[in-house]
């Protein structure tokens, strides 16, 4: 074993201009505004965190029930309840400045103009490392997935946000499309610095006694280990379609899960539903990544990115890529 490998493997990554101390980011909608977990875990141990989705104004979100457990998963329809971007900037961001982690803001809008306006407010604030664009929430009537389900709308929103900030811009793509590569390319062409793949998978759980949906909103977004193979496949497709980095999301609960995304071509990953299950997940995944690198004689996490051995790899066109 060489000296370099005997030392702690390097976990730092660079994603579309974001420099992260490790590739683990807390996913939007599963980590509040970050401060809720202060004291329960060490926020400075995260590569980064993404805020709950923020509009200009506060929002009540969906009626209850909002969550239902499913096999290895969670179906939710929260509807982007939130305090609004100004309250976040004034009250939450200063508290987050105490931690050494990259803070990304998930921006939402009912209109392209609202996305741009929220981004301008975020751009003016201290302590923001990047902007994630929410064009994939399945639980709102306007905006959300309506923008993420049409490549022209995706392009329009990403362009508008691009013009509103010099921060890294990262659209979060929806899996509820026929070909995610089209959306990854539309994002890249519109000036995105990276893409996050994927948001939740549209689902429905039925209460058979009442013959009604379990969720008040009706349908919801499925997350958790149940969607991981779908997410790895879509992140892989996106990574093959664009030159900008891909951030993998979907059912990561341990180091092996994170490695699937990295090997499939993702430069970093986000951890979502697992935050609810175990706030200690980051320590476990980080230690597990380091162990993996040591076992494989590697000194840097970047050396596993995109190393998928896939001899029977279908040509991109066959996958719609």
């Amino acid at each position, binding site marked *: 074993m060489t000296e370099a490998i005997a030392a702690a493997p390097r976990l730092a990554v660079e994603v579309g201009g974001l420099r992260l101390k490790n590739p683990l980011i807390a996913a939007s909608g599963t*980590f509040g505004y970050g401060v*809720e977990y202060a*004291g329960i875990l060490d926020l400075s141990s995260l590569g980064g965190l993404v805020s709950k989705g923020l509009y200009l104004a506060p929002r009540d979100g969906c*009626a*209850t029930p*909002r969550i239902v*457990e499913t096999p290895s998963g969670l179906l939710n329809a*929260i509807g982007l309840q939130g305090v609004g971007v100004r309250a976040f900037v004034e009250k939450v961001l200063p508290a987050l400045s105490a931690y050494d982690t990259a803070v990304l803001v998930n921006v939402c809008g009912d209109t392209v103009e609202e996305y741009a306006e929220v981004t301008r407010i975020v751009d003016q604030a201290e302590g923001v490392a990047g902007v994630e664009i929410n064009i994939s929430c399945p639980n709102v009537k306007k905006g959300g997935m309506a923008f993420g389900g049409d490549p022209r709308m995706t392009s329009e929103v990403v362009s508008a946000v691009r013009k509103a900030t010099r921060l890294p811009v990262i659209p979060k793509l929806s899996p509820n499309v026929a070909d995610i590569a089209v959306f990854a390319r539309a994002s890249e062409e519109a000036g995105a610095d990276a893409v996050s793949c994927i948001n939740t998978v549209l689902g429905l759980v039925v209460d058979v006694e009442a013959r009604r949906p379990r969720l008040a909103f009706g349908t919801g977004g499925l997350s958790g*280990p149940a969607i991981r193979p779908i997410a790895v496949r879509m992140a892989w497709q996106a990574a093959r379609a664009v030159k900008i980095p891909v951030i993998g999301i979907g059912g990561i609960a341990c180091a092996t899960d994170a490695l699937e995304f990295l090997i499939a071509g993702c430069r970093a990953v986000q951890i979502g539903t697992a935050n609810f*299950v175990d706030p200690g997940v980051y320590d476990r995944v980080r230690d597990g990544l380091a162990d993996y690198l040591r076992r494989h004689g590697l000194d840097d996490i970047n050396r596993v990115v995109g190393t998928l051995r896939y001899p029977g790899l279908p040509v991109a066109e066959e996958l719609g890529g």
Partner: protein
Amino acid sequence: MTPINKDAVLVSRQPLGGPYVLLTLRHAEVARASRAGQFVMIKAGTSAEPPLRRPFSILTVDPAAETFRLFLKTIGAGTRALAALAPGDLAQCLGPLGKPFTAPPPGREALLVAGGYGIAPFHLFCEELLRAGGRARVFYGGRTAADLQVREPFAAMGVPLVPTTDDGSLGHHGRVTEAVEQYLDAKTGPVALYACGPDAMLHAVARLAARRSLPAQVSLDPWMGCGVGTCLGCVVWTQSAAEPRAHYRCACTEGPVFDAREVVWPGEDGAR
């Protein structure tokens, strides 16, 4: 205090009748800091299924032994997995969580209204009330006598307990709120109501309290994802004098105990 996330060791397991079980777990911070009405988010082992932890009221604490107890009714996969733990097994446990009950002003008798496993937070609450020189009386309702498993501890504390059952197999034959009404009709001194149980019972207690102009606190038990206010799954539609515009509050961080007047109950004006 900040809730502490760690593996709690199961110290002992005591099956009660039917689906009920008492679990004793070691978690020093929960044992030391918990107040009545607070809860833990807990899951048996680290298996993938079922995915989420479950919230449970803390029944009792033993700070010297660094243990606490939970009273469970096995209903689904989560409770079954917990009830199947053997001594020495681990459970992922975060706590103490949530806002506790607020004791009534001196001289006001606390009437604790429990439905089924809603008895859980009242053991610790009686200990707190008695320690502070207060008085308590428990009204404990269930479908049948077998659902009223936690009675002896109250007798041991000298707290009167009024059992009620839907089938008349024990105590008052009928709803638990009827027994509360009967007591109030015969009583003159000041009281405060506290309730934990099914939503319909909590709503009935809230109506009773409003009708008689009595203070009431209710402990709600919605589906909960995280326990720390991030998933926003457990929200309760509320309204208060301080915040007249109806809004959602998290049962996990701003509850589970709410002033009954501040909950906008389903079917009432302003309900969503």
